């Protein structure tokens, strides 16, 4: 039976309206309980810290920071730096992401699958891998720049940051645009051709306009992530101070929490603006054809010259990434990359000793604990949003995404402020100290909470997309056959969203292992985090150790991702479900 073509509006960022009239059933007791628990968790882990950082930011020195936004040239400069960095990275990242997506959809060449994998690799890469590799290769004493080309460029600052951040974040643009392009009906191209338009004209008049919302949304997303990034400005930023690094210095250097809060709250502004703009401007959604079954074969571009030009950027980017990885891995086995390239295991011996080992074990364990919780939370929220809750759906969706929407520094500082002491109502303690030295479990609870709240949004988006694909009549059919809500979820819904769940879990683990900005404010001697250790090694110039840590981290991430894959056992639909997963590393 040929699938019918339904044209519907699709917005990746908003829960779409149900296929039929929303069911008017009152929620049963079980669902109500789940809803209450989920909302409570979100309030505790996101809203509570946010409120606290807000209030703190308006304390003395914080107010000073705010008031100097318009008067102090220094503060204005920092804001300017942040915005410029965001814009540059967003632009480059979107362009690169577009070319890569275009190559996947429109060109046929050997190694296409490999290109796809390489395009996604930065997502599971620790933040410092790129920065340290780039410094080693292209820095003042860089292997390529000094030894091969004889140049001594200044990489620290905007140039280095641009390179590194673009490499780190273009996969987000790539996945988003790829998802959109895959949903474009090939019949549109055919219609255009039948009306006399050349391929080039079709591209500019049909394809491109339909992709513009996707470009815009990628740009905005990249802007928010690049401007909020903390790890790279600390390592390769040099004198180029951005809001995130300034906040870090304020807290860890000057012990001025209000000022630090204030700086990171300024970061909240572009993020929230972007969020709101996306939601409301998303009313004019892109009209994308959604077919039940493919209605046409994709037409590849055969023209060799066109192919060549279109592949320049993708191939360059891919080669660059491979080069970076090669540097990291090679560097982990070298005494001092660039200076003494003789092979050694000293770096690895170092990271596996004492503190290093501790960090490796603890980080992995905490990430492993957080991953299923994040997956479950994201899935439950998605189920509530798509199937159960009618009034307040948008609010619930927004609340679930908040953990990822706020910059990492904001969340981290908020957590530190909130959980560095026990939570009391009046005289009674309702929560013990969860973060910082002296906390229960050495502060692991707070770290696991941060991991959870930062990675559940990705799972939420992924599960929402998957649930929307399922005809709501299927749930009703199950009910008409006597299955309770929970049984229906277990036997019908869950098996059908397994691929989405899988993607969510895998990225949750990868994200938790590689995140830095929220964690840096709540680590303790008892809960050392790998990314924090890498930062320490890079700061001390011990690149070899840093490379070793990075290599090991990548190895752990790949192994666990593979295990999750085997465990949940479904075919991970890497492009279409992943395209709905916004990945942030900040």
């Amino acid at each position, binding site marked *: 039976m040929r699938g019918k073509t339904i044209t519907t509006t699709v917005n990746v960022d908003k829960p779409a309206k149900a296929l039929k*009239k929303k069911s008017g059933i009152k929620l049963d007791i079980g669902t109500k309980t789940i809803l209450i628990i989920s909302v409570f968790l979100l309030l505790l882990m996101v809203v509570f810290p946010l409120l606290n950082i807000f209030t703190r930011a308006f304390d003395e020195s914080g107010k000073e920071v705010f008031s100097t936004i318009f008067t102090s040239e220094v503060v204005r400069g920092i804001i300017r730096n942040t915005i410029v960095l965001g814009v540059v990275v967003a632009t480059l990242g979107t362009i690169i992401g577009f070319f890569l997506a275009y190559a996947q959809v429109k060109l046929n060449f050997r190694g296409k699958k490999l290109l796809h994998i390489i395009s996604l690799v930065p997502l599971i890469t620790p933040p410092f891998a790129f920065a340290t590799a780039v410094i080693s290769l292209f820095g003042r004493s860089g292997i390529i720049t000094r030894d091969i080309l004889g140049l001594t460029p200044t990489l620290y600052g905007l140039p280095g940051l641009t390179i590194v951040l673009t490499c780190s974040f273009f996969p987000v643009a790539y996945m988003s645009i790829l998802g959109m392009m895959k949903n474009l009906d090939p019949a549109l191209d055919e219609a255009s051709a039948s009306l006399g338009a050349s391929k080039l004209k079709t591209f500019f008049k049909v394809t491109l306009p339909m992709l513009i919302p996707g470009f815009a949304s990628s740009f905005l997303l990249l802007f928010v992530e690049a401007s909020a990034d903390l790890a790279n400005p600390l390592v390769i930023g040099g004198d180029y101070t951005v809001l995130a690094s300034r906040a870090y210095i304020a807290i860890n250097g000057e012990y001025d929490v209000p000022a630090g809060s204030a700086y990171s709250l300024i970061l909240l502004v572009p993020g929230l603006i972007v969020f709101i703009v996306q939601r409301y401007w998303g009313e004019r959604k892109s009209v994308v054809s959604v077919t039940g079954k493919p209605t046409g074969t994709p037409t590849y571009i055969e023209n060799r010259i066109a192919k060549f030009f279109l592949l320049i950027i993708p191939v360059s980017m891919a080669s660059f990434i491979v080069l970076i990885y090669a540097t990291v891995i090679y560097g982990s086995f070298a005494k001092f990359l660039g200076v003494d390239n003789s092979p050694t295991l000293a770096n690895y011996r170092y990271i596996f000793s004492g503190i290093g080992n501790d960090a490796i074990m603890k980080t992995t364990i905490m990430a492993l604990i957080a991953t299923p919780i994040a997956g479950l939370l994201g899935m439950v929220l998605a189920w509530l949003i798509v199937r159960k809750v009618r009034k307040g759906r948008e609010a619930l969706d927004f609340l679930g995404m908040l953990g990822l929407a706020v910059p990492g520094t904001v969340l981290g500082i908020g957590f530190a402020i909130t959980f560095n002491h026990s939570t009391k109502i009046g005289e009674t303690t309702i929560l013990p100290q969860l973060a910082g030295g002296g906390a229960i479990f050495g502060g692991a609870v707070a770290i696991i909470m941060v991991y959870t709240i930062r990675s559940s949004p990705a799972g939420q988006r992924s599960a929402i997309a998957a649930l929307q694909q399922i005809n709501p009549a*299927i749930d*009703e*059919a199950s*009910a*008409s*056959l006597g*299955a309770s809500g929970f*049984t229906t979820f277990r036997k019908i819904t869950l*098996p059908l969203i397994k691929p989405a769940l899988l993607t969510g879990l895998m990225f949750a683990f990868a994200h938790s292992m590689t995140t830095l900005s929220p964690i840096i404010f709540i680590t303790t001697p008892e809960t050392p985090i790998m990314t924090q250790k890498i930062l320490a090694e890079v700061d001390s110039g011990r690149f070899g150790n840093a490379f070793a840590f990075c290599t090991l981290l990548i190895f752990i991430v790949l192994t666990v991702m593979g295990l999750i894959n085997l465990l949940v056992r479904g075919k991970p639909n890497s492009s279409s479900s992943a395209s709905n997963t916004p990945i942030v590393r900040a």
Partner: protein
Amino acid sequence: METKMGSASSSSKLELRNLSKVFGQGKEQVMAVDSIDLDINPGEFITFLGPSGCGKTTTLRMIAGFETPSQGSILLDGQDVSSLSPDKRPMGMVFQSYALFPHMSVYQNVSYGPRIKKLPAEQVKMDVSAVLDSMSLSSMANRSPNQLSGGQQQRVALARAMVMQPKVLLFDEPLSNLDAKLRAQMRIEIREVQQRLGITSIFVTHDQDEAMSISDRIVVMRNAKIEQVGIPADVYLRPASVFVADFIGISNFLTVDGVSSAGAGKAKVNVLGRAIEVPAHKEALNKESILLVRPESIRVKPAQAGNASVSGTQGQVKQVVFYGQHVEYRIQSQVGIITAVVSDPIFSEIVPVGEYAEFAFDPERSWLLPADS
């Protein structure tokens, strides 16, 4: 109604009492179903028929439990089920999209309900095999839904609902996704199964042919209310309103005057210059009324030579369509365009376009009904 094989005792009665459903709030409120009262007899096949938005699907979904009534109650064998969740109601539903579970085989789909009920494995196997057999699906037991044709998917959906031996079977426009020929075939199959098992069934459709051909009674709905309930003959030959008459089949509405009673259920009227006695709806005498004449009731003959006029029972043929078994005319008459269908036409008597024709109908075949606004 014929006796059903051995199930008359287990057929259920369904009653709808003052059932209403309102969507939205305040100014945006929409009354989807407005105070419906209906008794559905045990073993009956009743169809809700009406245009889109008339409330038929909403009513069905309230019976199933997928919508909560804003007012009123639903009684199954005397017990109020309105507050029961759908999984607790002993009703089976066949959906428009079939809603087969894509990750399960045909067998797994059909055995889903019994497995939920935790019936013993042996019994499940027996029941499922029997149902699959009766619907000629045994050879496809291990296929997955996307390997089946539309008609086969429909049968699986039906089998899945039936294996539960529900007290009531609900059909939500199950045939809309099929092509015309398959539709005609499947509706007969559905009716046969229903009659054999004697399950009280409620069928929703906007297709009048469907409704007429398989229902014991038809409920015609419009704008959230019931317009008429009756057996197909009632609804077709004795419509209660212009809407019902117009919705089902083709109608000619002739203006009349001089309406007066002529005994029980009859009226004397002047129409087309003649005074005749016609069967009448009881409301027709109290209000302004109009005369319904179905096209198949009108006989058409060429007008007498030299008599070219539009008056009385004579008019000019504006359109003639020859369908083989019948001829369809559009004739300009004194009271407007009249549609006439002449079956088994005599070749020499087919009136060409532009010519004049005489038309007549047996007063017993007409029907006086209230002319609503």
